[in-house]
């Protein structure tokens, strides 16, 4: 197996909003040993249709196969490869920091300001931060905060993406 162009790639899927569709998609990834880095799903303006944003780390050939295999599923209405498309993509992430000293708290407020995060809850020795930014930036934040603080708890939502308007219209 060669690994030409091993990297993270994004797919957006339109699927039928039915019982079992999520398990068919995720089962396809596990059954065929495709990497599934993140997957988000929610209904669209049409309640019979859901849209998924999927991130996968794969090489060129595997990625082609993933798209074809997804297309083969009866419940998949459309597969959009985000590779060469201008997209808006964000991920929500909560970070709870415990056992904070006073100076930790000061630093956390600085981090929040730098990354345009919100401090959304506050305790005697803890803080809760909300980040809405790209997954890559969230990765960096997690790395930084793990180094800086003794006890952190992270919950990430997975990215959601949509094709941007301005670039398409230009």
């Amino acid at each position, binding site marked *: 197996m060669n690994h030409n162009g091993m990297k993270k790639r994004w797919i957006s899927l339109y*699927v039928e909003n*039915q019982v079992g569709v999520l398990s068919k998609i995720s089962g*396809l990834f596990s*059954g065929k040993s495709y990497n599934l880095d993140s997957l988000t799903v929610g209904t669209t303006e049409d309640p019979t249709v859901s849209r998924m944003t999927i991130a996968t780390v794969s090489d060129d050939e595997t990625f082609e*196969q993933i798209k074809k295999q997804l297309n083969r*599923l009866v419940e998949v209405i459309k597969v959009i490869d985000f590779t060469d498309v201008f997209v808006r993509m964000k991920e929500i992430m909560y970070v709870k920091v415990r056992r904070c000293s006073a100076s930790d708290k000061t630093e956390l407020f600085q981090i929040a300001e730098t990354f345009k995060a919100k401090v959304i809850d506050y305790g005697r020795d803890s803080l809760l931060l909300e980040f809405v930014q790209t997954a890559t930036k969230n990765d960096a934040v997690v790395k930084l905060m793990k180094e800086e603080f003794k006890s952190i708890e992270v919950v990430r939502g997975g990215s959601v993406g949509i094709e941007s308007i301005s670039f398409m219209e230009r």
Partner: protein
Amino acid sequence: MRKISGNKLLVKALKEEGVDTLFGYPGACTIDISDELYKQDFTRVILPRQEVALVHEADAYARSTGKVGVCLVTSGPGATNLVTGLATAYYDSVPLVCFTGQVARHLIGNDAFQEVDIVGITRSITKYGVTVRDRKDLGRIVKEAFYIARTGRPGPVLIDLPKDVMAELGDAEYPSEVNIRGYKPNTIAHVGQLKRAIKMLNKAKRPLFLIGGGVNIANAREEFTELVRITNVPVVTTIMGRGAISTDHPLYIGNLGMHGAYACNMAVSECDILFSIGTRFNDRITGKLHSFAPKAKIIHIDIDTAAISKNVQVDVPIVADARDAITRMLEYVEPCNTEKWMNQIQEWKEEHPLTMREKPVMTPKHVIDTINRMFDEAIIVTDVGQHQMFVSQFAEITPKKKLLTSGGLGTMGYGLPGAIGAKLGNPDIPVISISGDGGMQMNIQELATAVLEELPIISCIFNNNNLGMVRQWQKLFYGKRYSMTCLHSGAACRGRCGEVECPPYTPDFIKLAESYGAKGIRITKKEEIEPAFQEAMASEKTPYILEFEIDPEDLVYPMIEPGGTLQDLIMDC
């Protein structure tokens, strides 16, 4: 508006889909459907003895008739017994619609009696699967199931029917049209790509057709034979592709792959254009990928986009139905000069002909040669193992002789139920199954079905007292350590093989046949082969078991060592 139960609508749907034969096994969750089937006469309901065999019967019925095979089983164990048969049909692209009973909706998820999540269990081995959760969707879902099963790349579809949904009254109409927004199979070939492929073919010095099961499934044998006649390009096939062109055609070389003929594997290795149609480039065909067709540009026509460039990177991909593509090609193709190339192939054929070493005692080839000689028309069904490879190497497959075999999944136990399904679909054509003694015992209970349905099938057993194909690997690659492959080993000889006398072989297939009401003949010598077939051929209603005593030392050659390349064949002759 008139309202009817789901059970009634289902039976109505079967009628409108033209289902003339249904393979069913009853249970608590489907008893109401059974009751509706009791009241109709358009479909013949076959009662096999095990759901495992039931699916194979529906599968062979579908493969041999081109219709959709229909199964009805109950929930829980009835449903789980479908698994192997669904996978078998999935890998060989066989259209099936399987209805499974399910517990009532309020019980789903409770670990109720005979409840399983069969749609979840079979997700990766069905083309489509769904639980009908609302009575109003029933008609549409059944209509879609038949459509999905038989269109595009055909495959098995599973519809799970909760008992209460089926009891509910609802719409009596069965829809006449299908519109699935996520399923629009593409069957029409792109002419530009086809012309590009033909241009490459015309320029080639050593062109070769590689044909898979897709050509047989698309029913494109005539068109393909015409394509070969015009172009003069030689042909190799996969086992599933065997019969796409008559095996006695002068441009047909044989099968390639693990047990393929030397000339075929050499031709693939030396060709400069490999024009492949309807094949998946399975590992048993390609051997080690990096040395597969190293000198060739590859053209690939397949109806399944995902089959293209999955295993082998191709230069010209064409997504299309094989028959549509070949028919369009006929307008543009020209004769190629392949004389020199054919001479080379002929040399390879003479260097290592595909045959078995001639022995004074009976060999599998003697039996298959006799079948070739005695039957002008036949459906030959195999099980899985050495005998299957012998059949794939030596059986003549012509427009009037068809081969049914579990090629992709390699399912032992397919032979006997396969013969039953084929015979039910083709009562006027002789049906011969060939199994090893291992595979035969995996679905031996179906003798009862064959006897009661009055099917004069000829079920051959190549009995070498062993699980021969695994034994062959043990002999060649595992220092003759025959672990788990001797079918008469047991407590009396465990750990003392060779020191004590072998326990007697069981069962006695002849007595077993008789106990079921079938006929059995044991054949030990060459001279007995023909008379045995003569007797069996004359049978009008009674199935025959012909048990051939085969030497376990008869191995399948040539052979590529697992993980080897097409160029490293182990030869016997």
